[in-house]
């Protein structure tokens, strides 16, 4: 199935007067295929349409014709959007993009066979000459889901007590093709040993929710700096990403956490995973 390619939010730290800028790098190439299917590859130019969520409409920002094998970079600061406004790019074989639409157009796919791995892009963060990248996407099928649930954890955070120069952020991403789907949803963040004392946080469909994990540590009175907290939502799904930054050494790190179903494997794994969801999300 095809994919949408988001432009991550820029992260502004007003207290330090610093900004971590985001960009997305796309490539006109089939990312994985069986060698004998090479003749099925699209070697022609494609079109990359980029939309921003404006009010209750997806509004076309730009169309870029991209030759086979050519990269295309989108930098948030170079386009007229807010730091956390939802921006999504998609591939089309033909130059057929509505200038505005309530429903985000279905992307075309460059895939030619059932080889593993979805179509992806480089999602990048930049800070004073350093860059961190993560290869990711937002699956088309997931963008058609109005309801869902979410469970994850913040074990990748970096919060050393001795340094004020280090920050970690959880970035929750939800994209829905329908621009009108922008409901507020509730997140519960909690110490798994004290689930009754959860912290309530607001997120929104079709948006990026950025959470400073230092604030979570303080709010949940964690004595252990690396105590792992769980994050859940009963009504919406998200892709979680963790950005850590050491402002002194200009070191960045961006990575996602696996969804719960990847803790197991085998044909019946989803039946067993339901136990995990029942334990942490439903109760």
């Amino acid at each position, binding site marked *: 199935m095809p994919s949408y390619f988001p432009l991550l939010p820029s992260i502004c730290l007003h207290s330090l007067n610093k900004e971590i800028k985001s960009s997305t790098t796309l490539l006109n190439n089939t990312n*994985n295929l069986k060698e004998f299917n090479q003749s099925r590859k699209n070697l022609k130019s494609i079109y990359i349409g980029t939309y921003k969520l404006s009010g209750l409409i997806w509004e076309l920002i730009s169309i870029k014709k991209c030759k086979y094998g050519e990269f295309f970079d989108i930098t948030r600061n170079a386009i007229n959007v807010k730091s956390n406004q939802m921006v999504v790019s998609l591939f089309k074989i033909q130059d057929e993009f509505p200038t505005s639409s309530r429903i985000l157009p279905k992307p075309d796919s460059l895939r030619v066979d059932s080889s593993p791995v979805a179509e992806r892009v480089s999602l990048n963060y930049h800070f004073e000459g350093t*860059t961190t*990248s993560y*290869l990711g996407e937002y699956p088309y099928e997931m963008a058609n889901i109005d309801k869902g649930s979410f469970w994850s954890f913040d074990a990748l955070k970096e919060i050393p007590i001795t340094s004020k*120069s280090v920050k970690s952020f959880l970035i929750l991403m939800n994209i829905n093709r329908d621009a009108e789907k922008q409901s507020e949803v509730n997140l519960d963040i909690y110490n798994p040993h004290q689930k009754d004392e959860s912290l309530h946080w607001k997120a929104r469909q079709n948006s990026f929710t950025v959470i400073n994990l230092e604030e979570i540590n303080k709010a949940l009175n964690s004595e252990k700096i690396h105590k792992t907290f769980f994050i859940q939502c009963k009504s919406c799904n998200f892709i979680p990403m*963790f950005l850590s930054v050491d402002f002194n*050494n200009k070191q960045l*790190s961006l990575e996602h956490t*696996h969804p719960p179903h990847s803790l197991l494997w085998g044909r019946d794994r989803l039946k067993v995973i339901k136990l995990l969801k029942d*334990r942490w999300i439903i109760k």
Partner: protein
Amino acid sequence: MDHKIKSFFKKNIPGPLRNIFSVIYNRGSNPYSSKSSIFSQVNISDFFVWNPHVEKIDFIAENIRALFTGENVEVLHCFKFFSHEGEFLSEEKYKSNDFFSRIPLNGPPKSSFYSSFIHYIEAEKSFHKLVKIFFKNKLFFGEQNRGYCIYYPKNSLVGSAVHGNFGGIASKGKNLLARQRLFHLYTPVYKFESHNSYDLVFNNPTSSKINIQIILNKNSEEIHHLQINSLGTKSFKLENFAGSITFRSKLPICRPLLFKNVNGLKSVNFDVLHT
């Protein structure tokens, strides 16, 4: 799977049979052995990269037993290290009852090459025993020990986090479920830049030697070759190159770990990612 065939399977074939058909139809790209995909109950590990050039490596380990029972089930997180040639080197074990543990790894002694390791669990009760009370029928599933490595460059309080490489390694490294299939061409969407240096680190989770071609996509293709033993690891240093790279191998997905500016003068702008 082609969309039309997928729709046909969905409409005409019931769930469990559909999985079996899907495994058979996609055999040419199935990273696991077909039999294990359908019938296996073993626990498997991803294949993680040990980098001897960074300051330290922390491992984020999940305790699946604790997560599923909601209780502090005590387990031993075990790490088994293999040399770059694929031979067993050393083992580390850490006791924990927490849901997630951050474990500073010692790694193999006197290592100067990139190498690889697996993560598995030793516990009083198997995961199957813990969850079987909830099910009437025999189920086919196993633990998948994922976990994350955090690689710290010198003088930084922030490391670069990345999950493990595809593994399918069971029975403490004695049962390898990953398979070599048809030749695949994988081109990660990553723009290499000439002012950065990169170490591309490949490991081989299959039971036989693997050949990998690294194709630098320039005006004229430049091709480099690697051969890696079973459970072995090899790296390829890339400098003064800008553009994209394609990997040709019999792995259905050949995704090396990429270390950017891992040492030397350019110790800034360090990054690690799973391509």
